[in-house]
């Protein structure tokens, strides 16, 4: 395909601001006379709040407002109408350590902090429960009265006939897998500057990856029409789901304090507050039973998934949906049963994170498939190739047993690309052992849904305004939180308009001016805001072509615009600059205003939580990954040297961006696989600093190569599907597979830390050998 802009290697549209330090993030905003807000947090994990005495704090000089739960009049929020269980500040009861109790606004941060210490709270401590399997047992402490069994979300889905399929299988395995307590780990902690102005409108400059969630929360909480809530989008220092999709205690307190004082109020969480309290990935236990024929063809999967939910429901219904709905991709599977339980505990709240829901079950099932292959004596690559779903012929779809429909599937092609690469093909020739280090190569083959949907409003929209000098402004409600969507959307607009990329300028989201948008989650922005941008640009282009046709006495179809030059297809000598045409179009007759708008239409199926049938998004990416690593058999230390990812994102529209997403996603997956985990002891997080939490550093990074598998999906602009979450999902199973190759031991619990490796080596009599 002959694209002028799509598929070219261009710098990010925001790169200049970011390398010069002029890009402003929420913490960089201030207003004259602004106050600082701090949140008082609970020192206990589970307790009734008997009384809050704020009188001393209020008397401290410099304190302007003290906020408690009663200021919010009992308002709570949540993902579904039936799960609105989370208040801005703990209301009557504390459910996890460091839950917000009160907010203070004062003339500076130090006074605000000092005032929080003067608030006296009487707690009646309650027994806590910290393990989801314990919390499900009868008699366990009840965390929410509306869920007396502590199960916050529960699904039971059944496709085909698993019992019959297991009975007829040649081999059946049962294993327990688990994923750890990990977090997004962005460097920019939550922050916002809020102003409740005298006209009764709210404006916030807030670090939100989904600003329209926050906009709805604020309108509901402060009982204002949406038209009076303005969320202005600064640059965002990373999102990855969870907290920045949502609102935090500081957000509500800052707005409430501004309402009470008439002054702008700012808060910035410390990174420790973020790590102790904010929404992170669920930790999930997967009890998986898998059957196969003698030839290794999968017959059935039965998965019982128990997720730790923490103190509130948050987006848990979707997390549990995704964990189950993806069981029948990327491998053919005629029978599966899924029992999903999300369970309240007195730990911090679990929600979405990159690789949402799917990472847990795909990890379990990819690994379990290898275990079966090992028992059957089938090569791991061969096992995957035998089971992988074929790429449907153009115009046809592949339908899973639960009605997930694939228009394209590059799984086999991706696996084959890995198979033929020396990292896999020549693995027997690479050194197996150097000193005490044993090397191994592992693979994975995984799928991820893109263009994800939730409940309520789904479509992304774009507006393009042509300027009379032949440049354009692009407005969208879709947020670039670092992933690069502003760049790819400008590329799409430039491609469709025939404009130079530099001439398309995108504005940051501002809910007062940009069209409403669901948010940046579920790998949806390039697909949906991309389609919206395409439509909006086509509308502008049509008006331009009509104006040019009129000028040249030609037909609009004959007009060609490329690289900001307009010409006649039949007579290339007839040409003018786009600037010239823009003037003609804008000034002719009574004058015209050239604008285009569009909204996305891909993927309109409603989510079916009850049965798990159908699509949770528009299309599916497929990733095959090879990992080479060394395990020190004395210390248990793992050094990962190589990642090779063959990734089917349909078509990379912005190659630098897509590579960056795959690299970043895979490294975050590596963190989850071997380094990262919160140590939480009776509700107390013991490693609440970056140093102790252990995200991958520059010295931990393998050499990463990416192979693009092009499948051109019909449900995405220019054939695009998702990139980033797929690579996050592919990393953990391929790392585990490589550790198995190096040690001969299957590790089924993430993260595989050196301690776990040494312990397992000792048990296997292989330690130091």
């Amino acid at each position, binding site marked *: 395909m002959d694209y002028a802009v799509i598929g070219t290697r261009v*710098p990010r549209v925001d790169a200049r601001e970011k*390398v010069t330090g002029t890009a402003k993030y929420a913490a960089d905003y201030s207003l004259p006379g602004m106050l600082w807000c701090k949140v008082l947090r609970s020192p206990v994990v589970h307790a009734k709040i008997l009384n809050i005495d704020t009188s001393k704090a209020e008397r401290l000089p410099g304190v302007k407002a003290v906020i408690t739960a009663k200021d919010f009049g009992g308002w709570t929020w949540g993902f579904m109408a039936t799960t609105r269980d989370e208040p801005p500040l703990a209301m009557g009861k504390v459910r996890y350590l460091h839950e917000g109790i009160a907010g203070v606004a004062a003339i500076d941060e130090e006074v605000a902090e000092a005032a929080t210490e003067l608030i006296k709270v009487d707690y009646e401590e309650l027994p806590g429960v910290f393990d989801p399997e314990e919390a499900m047992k009868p008699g366990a402490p009840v965390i929410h009265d509306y869920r007396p069994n502590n199960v916050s979300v529960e699904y039971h889905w059944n496709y085909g006939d698993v019992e019959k399929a297991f009975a007829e299988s040649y081999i059946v395995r049962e294993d327990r897998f688990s994923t750890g307590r990990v977090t997004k*780990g962005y460097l920019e902690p939550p922050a916002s500057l809020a102003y409740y102005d005298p006209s009764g409108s709210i404006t916030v400059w807030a670090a939100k990856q989904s600003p329209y969630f926050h906009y709805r929360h604020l309108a509901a909480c402060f009982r204002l029409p949406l038209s009076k809530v303005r969320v202005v989008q600064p640059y965002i220092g990373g999102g990855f789901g969870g907290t920045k999709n949502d609102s935090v205690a500081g957000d509500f307190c800052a707005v409430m304090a501004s309402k009470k004082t008439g002054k702008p109020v700012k808060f910035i969480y410390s990174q420790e507050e973020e790590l102790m309290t904010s929404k992170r990935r669920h930790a999930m236990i997967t009890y998986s039973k898998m059957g196969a024929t003698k030839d290794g063809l999968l017959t059935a999967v039965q998965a019982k998934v128990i997720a730790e939910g923490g103190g509130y429901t948050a987006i848990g219904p979707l997390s549990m949906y995704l964990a189950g709905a993806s069981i029948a991709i990327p491998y053919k599977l005629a029978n599966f049963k899924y029992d999903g339980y999300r369970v309240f505990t007195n730990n911090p709240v679990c929600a979405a994170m990159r690789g949402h829901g799917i990472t847990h079950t795909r990890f379990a099932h990819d690994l379990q498939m290898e275990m079966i292959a090992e028992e059957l004596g089938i090569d791991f690559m061969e096992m995957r190739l035998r089971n992988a779903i074929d790429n449907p012929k153009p115009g046809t779809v592949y339908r899973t047993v639960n009605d997930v429909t694939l228009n394209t599937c590059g799984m086999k092609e991706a696996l084959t690309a890995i198979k033929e690469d020396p990292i896999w093909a020549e693995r027997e020739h690479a050194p197996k052992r150097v000193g005490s280090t044993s090397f191994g190569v592992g693979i994975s083959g995984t799928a991820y849904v893109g263009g994800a949907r939730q409940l309520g409003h789904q479509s992304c929209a774009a507006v393009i305004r042509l300027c009379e000098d032949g440049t354009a402004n692009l407005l969208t409600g879709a947020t670039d939180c670092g992933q690069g969507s502003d760049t790819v959307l400008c590329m799409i607009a430039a491609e469709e308009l025939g404009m130079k990329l530099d001439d398309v300028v995108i504005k940051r989201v501002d809910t007062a001016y940009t069209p409403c948008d669901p948010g940046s989650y579920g790998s949806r922005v390039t697909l949906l805001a991309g389609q919206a941008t395409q439509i909006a640009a086509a509308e502008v282009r049509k008006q331009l072509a009509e104006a040019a046709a009129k000028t040249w006495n030609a037909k609009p179809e004959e007009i060609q615009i490329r690289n900001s030059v307009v010409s006649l297809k039949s007579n290339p000598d007839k040409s003018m600059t786009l600037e010239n045409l823009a003037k003609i179009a804008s000034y002719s007759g009574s004058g015209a205003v050239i604008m285009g708008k569009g909204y996305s239409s891909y993927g309109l199926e409603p989510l079916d939580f009850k049965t798990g049938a159908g699509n949770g998004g528009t299309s599916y990416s497929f990733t095959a990954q090879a990992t080479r690593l060394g395990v020190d058999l004395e210390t248990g230390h793992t050094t990962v040297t190589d990642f090779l990812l063959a990734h089917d994102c349909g078509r990379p529209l912005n190659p630098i961006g897509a590579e960056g997403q795959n690299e970043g996603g895979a490294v975050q997956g590596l963190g989850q696989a071997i380094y990262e985990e919160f140590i939480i002891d009776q509700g107390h997080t013991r490693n609440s600093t970056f140093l102790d939490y252990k995200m991958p550093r520059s010295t931990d990074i393998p050499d990463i190569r990416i192979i693009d598998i092009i499948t051109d999906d019909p449900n995405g602009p220019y054939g695009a599907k998702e990139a980033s979450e797929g690579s996050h999902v592919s990393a953990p199973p391929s790392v585990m597979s490589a550790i198995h190759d190096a040690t001969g031991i299957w590790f089924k619990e993430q993260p595989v830390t050196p301690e776990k490796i040494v312990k397992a080596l000792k048990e296997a009599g292989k330690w130091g050998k």
Partner: protein
Amino acid sequence: MKEIRITVNGKPYELSVRPWATLLEVIREDLGLTGTKEGCGVGECGACTVIMNGKSVNACLVLAPEADGKEITTIEGLAQGEKLDPIQQAFYEIGGLQCGFCTPGMIMSTKALLAETPEPTDHEIRKGLEGNFCRCTGYTKIFESVREASRKSRR
């Protein structure tokens, strides 16, 4: 309050600061240079890296009085007008950034690294950036950016 004199990006300042204020607070709040970021405030992430008398430091760990008499360069001090520093140019071209929150610190650490080791090996690049977390990029394009910056600086 304590009086200090510091030079930031070539400009001399006389400031009166709280003795326990950090250099990071002085840079961001007193001088309004918000390009330097605070990721953790406790010396663990490198987002606040600046160069003080030729050495890279975490500004959140330097008390303002310790910076008295020192010369400091922040991210705002690298470009010459419109012209980017070769390191900034390399990050810009190669795509060594996503959300950009680690970027000022990464670039300042690279500045210090290349000043000492103009042609770093891959190992030296990784070591040189060990104190700077990046959660977005997986570091791969950052390493490429540093290699490209090294080539550009020597041209």
